């Protein structure tokens, strides 16, 4: 088991955003957590990354318990996140954004080779190499955010709503890239998405979240056929 989240509870003051959600992810899997706006998806990812504290629950990564580690220590363990709304470093150039992603890994990875690979994957980043990130469009920022996470050769990639605010065509492209990374490179990926259709199509398994609790789980292909899921999330 690469990631094992057990009974996560997350609150903001009196607001209970996540109430006892458990899920897991095997090495090489692509898993989605789908749910409506406000269901608690971002809270869960931020909880895994250690950006928001857990009220209760435990997280194991690669057999180690990481529940009490600081965010940067979890990153060093090999987890990377593509946060909601990309969160690129606005005044740093595209190149500097990528280098920040490689921080502390100079000895472990071949940075130049990684950058060449990422430029192949997202050619626009090569074109915009020396531009400040805040001059990029929303879609370009998402690509930069993914590249910034990938440069470190993570063991687990967390992706928070890359589809948000993107044109449908771009959504398909970005999901295609995620699928490729999973199938061809064996990258383990946890996607959280409001866009259930797009994410179920590329996932092996999925969890369905409603106001902080998990209401369904199963193979993505089965959830795509499930009448209840279809009605609520796929608009049929």
């Amino acid at each position, binding site marked *: 088991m690469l990631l094992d989240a057990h009974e996560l509870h997350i609150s903001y003051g009196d607001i209970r955003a996540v109430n006892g959600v458990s899920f897991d992810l095997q090495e090489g899997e692509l898993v989605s957590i789908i749910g409506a706006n406000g269901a608690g998806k971002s809270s869960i990812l931020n909880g895994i*990354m250690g*950006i928001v504290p857990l009220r209760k629950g435990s997280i194991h990564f690669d057999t180690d318990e990481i529940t009490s580690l600081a965010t940067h220590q979890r*990153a*060093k363990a090999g987890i*990377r*996140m593509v*946060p909601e709304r990309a969160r690129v*470093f606005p005044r740093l150039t595209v190149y500097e954004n990528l280098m920040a992603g490689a*921080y502390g890994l*100079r000895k472990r990875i071949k940075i130049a080779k990684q950058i060449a690979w990422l430029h192949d994957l997202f050619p626009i980043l090569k074109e915009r190499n020396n531009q400040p990130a805040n001059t990029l469009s929303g879609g370009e920022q998402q690509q930069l955010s993914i590249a910034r996470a990938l440069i470190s050769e993570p063991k687990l990639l967390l992706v928070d709503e890359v589809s948000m605010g993107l044109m449908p065509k771009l959504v398909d492209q970005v999901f295609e890239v995620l699928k490729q990374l999973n199938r061809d490179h064996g990258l383990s990926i946890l996607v959280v998405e409001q866009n259930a259709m797009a994410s179920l199509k590329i996932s092996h398994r999925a969890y369905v979240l409603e106001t902080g609790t998990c209401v369904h789980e199963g193979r993505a292909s089965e959830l795509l056929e499930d009448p209840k899921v279809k009605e609520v999330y796929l608009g049929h």
Partner: protein
Amino acid sequence: MSAYLITIATLIAIYAIVVCGLNVIVGFAGQISLGHAAFFGIGAYSAALLATKGGLSFWTALPCVIAVSAFIGLLLGLPSLRVKADFLAITTIGINFIVEALFLYVPFFGGALGIGGIPRVMFFGIKLKGLAFFYLCLFFLVVVILICWWFRRSWAGLACFALREEESAAASMGISPVRFKLLAFVIGTGMAGLGGALYAHYIRFIAATDFAFPVSILFLSMVVLGGMGTLWGPVLGALILGALPEIFRPLVDYRFLFYMVLLLIMIRFQPGGLLGERSAVRRVLASIIPGAHQ
């Protein structure tokens, strides 16, 4: 150069050193500090005490002075790890008042009389004064600028910039917020300590009010005016605001009102400062000198 001009130039060079340090904290690491004069004072007082009571030369005392300032900077940087920006502003103001009060009321620090009789800096048996002392300050300013230049290009600098822009995103790529915020405080307050030592040996009589809160506002105005996070901004800011009061002597009583208004105007209309990205000055410079990046 007339003695008067040399005096102003020397003070500007010292301010520039101190303000480069503030720029590391505010501009590079994005941590607000409204108490930088406290560290300027800690440098000046430790240099003065080591020289007068300890009998140490400027040169032997200097590493201690910088270490003391940086160490206290490290301790007082700790609040920055816990509190949000607006609260950090208040905390650093508080630190400034506490340090000033200690200088003023603790007899060991000379009390209201301050510390006098600080010797001049000796260099191979020669007393440095006038132009020679100005060159000494200029030398240290160059060292400080080189350190800033190197820092901006280093991994540590990139880590600081990333934290400044998006703290949780930076942390989630393995950058420790604790380590780099404290590093910025250590470097910044160390530079303030260096400036303080030069100031003490130049003025040769220091008192608590030299390091009061309005001086911190002056330093911050210099950084904001010149351009936070740029390499040359702090020097330009120190040059302009160091020279202005001399030009407008009659208005000296309104000086801090002026700095406050200036701060507000800059933050409203040109938040990047004179040398910030896309600023008017930067555009003119870029058209004159191709490749003027910093």
